[in-house]
């Protein structure tokens, strides 16, 4: 234990001695300050209600700030009354303080059916691939075509309208058809979760020095997106690059003539030195990410009043990614004693996985022949590499589920592809274990 603590302390001192570590810490601190400088100013929920009611024909394939998406517009002429408090004659359930009511009048009721058909397409596409994939032309005469062309039922109309307001973040939503006037609906919405309400606030950065309205995004989505940026873009991209470059140098430097002798002459086994150095680096990265993410979570909580701590859990997933990639840098560093090659091995394993993942995505749009030729190769290479993409998805899921309900999470992230977690975890751990074993073997067998 004393030897492990000595190596851990050495790892800390070594990392502290590198400028790039300070760059990473400074950048992390900037993120913490950024998170702490955010403030929201709520705009009137009635304005958000009016906006949603007035834009019923607009479907956005949007995943918050993570993806641009696009907008589908269906022409709908609808009259919207000013939001009002519920009246006894509305016969609405009691006990919901924030309930507001608007009445919708479709001037041409058939437009509601057209809208419902568009919604069927929209929902099907979202279900299929989160709106990421290509348009699929529905084959004439197919079951899907028949489903899309089927007459719109009254229940489906109510469901459509309800979903539009739920999607905007209102809870609860009650939609009732007017018995007297066709094409007229009463919509009562609650604002029980102001955090989830889209387009109902402005966000300010830099302690109020710069602000912008959140037109299509709720506070919760904004905070979830910001958390994803911290965990995935900063820690999962810049952080991984910096940390791999910092720690990749450790073994080539340790193995320098005259330096390793000093360590090897001590009563500690060679394999233990490698494993302790590895474990020390992983623990240091975990500590670094935990402090950064906890700092961001606390800063966000102090600034906005929303205390969400699953961001801290992302420290584990980001560390797992480092723990999976670092053995590649170690093995190459030990074999070549070359800092640059060692760094390239760690970053290269990560970059290759990202490249293969992207290529597999692109291949979905290719013709069958290209897919048949390339898919097995890409799948084979992807199978042995650490699953950086899956770990990023795990982060996104953690953060989205912390801030958002299922529907909003789906809107933010799109449909998360099915992940075989056992395979992803197993192959990632296998990659790390094989390379770590190789690193140990190289050190154990070599003369120094």
């Amino acid at each position, binding site marked *: 234990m004393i030897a492990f603590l000595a190596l851990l302390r050495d790892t800390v001192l070594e990392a502290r001695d590198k400028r790039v570590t300070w760059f990473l810490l400074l950048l992390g601190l900037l993120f913490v300050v950024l998170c702490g400088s955010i403030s929201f100013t709520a705009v009137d929920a009635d304005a958000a209600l009016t906006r949603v009611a007035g834009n019923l024909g607009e479907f956005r394939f949007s995943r918050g700030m993570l993806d641009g998406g696009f907008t589908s517009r269906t022409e709908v002429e609808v009259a919207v009354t000013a939001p009002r408090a519920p009246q006894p004659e509305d016969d609405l359930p009691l006990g919901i303080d924030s309930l507001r009511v608007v009445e919708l009048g479709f001037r041409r009721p058939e437009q509601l059916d057209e809208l419902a058909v568009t919604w069927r397409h929209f929902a099907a596409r979202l279900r299929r691939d989160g709106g990421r994939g290509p348009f699929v032309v529905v084959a004439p005469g197919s079951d899907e075509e028949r489903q899309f062309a089927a007459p719109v039922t009254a229940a489906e109309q109510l469901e459509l309208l309800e979903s539009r307001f739920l999607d905007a973040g209102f809870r609860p939503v009650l939609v009732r058809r007017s018995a007297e006037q066709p094409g007229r609906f009463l919509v009562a919405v609650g604002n029980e979760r102001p955090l989830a309400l889209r387009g109902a606030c402005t966000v300010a950065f830099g302690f109020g020095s710069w602000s912008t309205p959140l037109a299509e995004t709720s506070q919760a989505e904004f905070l979830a997106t910001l958390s994803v940026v911290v965990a995935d873009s900063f820690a999962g991209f810049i952080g991984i690059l910096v940390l791999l470059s910092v720690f990749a140098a450790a073994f080539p430097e340790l193995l*320098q003539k005259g330096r390793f002798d000093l360590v090897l002459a001590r*009563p500690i086994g060679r394999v233990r030195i490698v494993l302790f150095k590895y474990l020390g680096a992983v623990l240091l990265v975990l500590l670094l990410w935990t402090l950064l993410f906890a700092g961001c979570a606390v800063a966000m909580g102090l600034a906005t009043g929303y205390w969400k701590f699953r961001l801290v859990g992302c420290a584990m997933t980001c560390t797992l990614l480092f723990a999976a990639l670092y053995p590649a840098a170690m093995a190459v560093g030990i074999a070549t004693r070359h800092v640059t090659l060692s760094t390239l091995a760690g970053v290269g394993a990560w970059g290759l996985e990202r490249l293969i993942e992207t290529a597999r995505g692109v291949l979905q749009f290719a013709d069958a022949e290209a897919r048949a030729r390339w898919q097995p190769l890409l799948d084979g290479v992807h199978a042995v590499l650490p699953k950086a993409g899956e770990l990023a998805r795990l982060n996104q899921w953690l953060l989205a589920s912390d801030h958002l309900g299922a529907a909003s999470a789906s809107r933010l992230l799109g449909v998360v592809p099915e992940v075989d977690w056992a395979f992803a975890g197993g192959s990632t751990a296998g990659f790390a274990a094989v390379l770590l074993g190789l690193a140990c073997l190289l050190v154990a067998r070599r003369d120094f």
Partner: protein
Amino acid sequence: MAAITIDAVSKSYRRGEFALRDVTLEVAPGEIFGLLGPNGAGKTTLVKILLDLVRPTRGTTSLLSLPSRQVAARRRVGYLPEDHRFPEHHTPVSALLFFAGLSGVAPAVARPRIDALLAQVGLADAAGRKVRGFSKGMKQRLGLAQVLVAEPDLLFLDEPTDGIDPVGRAEIRGLLEQQRRAGRTIFLNSHLLSEVEQLCDRVGILARGELKRVGSVRELTQSAICWAITLSQPPGEALLAELVRAFGDARRAVSDGIPDPEAARTVELSLARDEAIDAVIDFLRARELSIRGVARKRTSLEAAFLDSVAGGGAAPGAAAGATA
């Protein structure tokens, strides 16, 4: 129980080159043993084999009765490699805490020891400075401190005074004497013969991977007794041949290139026993040669070393040195 046991150790490389051939040696506890040899003789390889940094092709070694391959064998061992490099992110204090930690010494125990050691090696004032700014001499002093930080019983020192000024060398010699008094065994690799001569109880001479000679400094320098006999006139070739036939050795004295009339008249002989000089004198007097002087010469360690390295056995008298 020997502190160091080396039993028929050989080390060869893939290209068939031998670094060590069948080296056998024992070093007793409390002894200071000096290993001499030219560059590439295999001194460092032998130490590295003892410390399990290099694996022997054949043979076994043990430290303090434990096989060198066992981690526990290094528990009571300190090592100062030649051209060692300290991690540059360390200060002397953090470096010594690190090495003490690797030896299983807790920081609370190591800290007072470190303060004392830094004062002892003259680095107390630089305790908080990064190692990267240190001179070679300072690094060498720190190296000695790291050897001693875990209070080992057995010390391996490869060129411990390398890069240190004469005053510093004297201080380090004092430090090593102190370790000897504390009962520690020291295995010293050095090019500085005078240092080895002053410090070591026994010396081994390694050349081309073979241990040529082992013994105390006295044994190595006096294993052959050299006599210089100055005659009234220069000896002829016939006389020298007769002396060789009768006593096994005889040659003209070497004057190191400086014209020396006395050297030209001097015959040098290596004799196995002191008493043999009487027979030599009788031999010369029987030929009516006039003797002007007889001197007993001591072989220097350098001469013994050079002779061993050159491939000879017993040190010849081809050396200058103190006369008896």
